[in-house]
């Protein structure tokens, strides 16, 4: 069985599918992080988010994150699913699942994965408000 699963998709993401990918009999714990679309940014109502990816490189960078987790925390399996396209409030943008021997490492590894993803993976989101739109993090 493959211990790394990386998906970028414009279809709805499924948390249970992602979790099952990291199911291993030797694992004592799984941590699943689910990132969802929030209804406001700094008090401004968000209508939707539009995600786009430089797909081949985004997959490569997510794979690097997963490989680092297998190495640093002896994880048994890592899955990262990221959505692209137009997402509404409450939709799932990203799911990260990690399984490890003991729970503490799974928590740390999952946190590392989402923090690093936000810094290195070439995926962008534009927030669409009622009265305008903005590329997130583009400007200081």
């Amino acid at each position, binding site marked *: 069985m493959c211990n790394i699963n990386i998906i970028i998709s414009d279809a709805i993401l499924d948390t249970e599918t992602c979790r099952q990918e990291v199911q291993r009999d030797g694992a004592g714990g799984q941590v699943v992080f689910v990132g969802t679309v929030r209804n406001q940014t700094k008090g401004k109502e968000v209508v939707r988010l539009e995600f786009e990816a430089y797909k081949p*490189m*985004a997959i*490569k960078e997510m794979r690097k994150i997963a490989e680092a987790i297998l190495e640093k925390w002896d994880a048994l399996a890592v899955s990262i699913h990221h959505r692209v396209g137009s997402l509404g409030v409450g939709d799932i943008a990203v799911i990260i699942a990690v399984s490890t021997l003991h729970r503490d490492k799974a928590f740390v590894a999952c946190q590392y994965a989402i923090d690093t993803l936000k810094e*290195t993976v*070439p995926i*962008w*989101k534009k927030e669409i408000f009622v009265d305008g739109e903005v590329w997130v*993090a*583009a400007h200081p």
Partner: protein
Amino acid sequence: MNLRLVAYGIAREILGGNDLQLNTTAVKSIGDLKEELVAKFPDFEKLTRFSMAVNEEYRDEEYLLSDGDEIVIIPPVSGG
């Protein structure tokens, strides 16, 4: 040297299109290319930062370009 620039996110909007063909003798490295880009499109300077990728890897300013390279402009990422 012929270079092809590909842009995503806000970089595409600054460029005014998905890609740009560049024929230049002034550009040798990624650093040169960033300077050239800022000179042509000053809005790049307003970004928090921007990076460049060749063959799906981030490249630093010293990276030397070759004729026919495809360079992807990576504005600040915001996945997750």
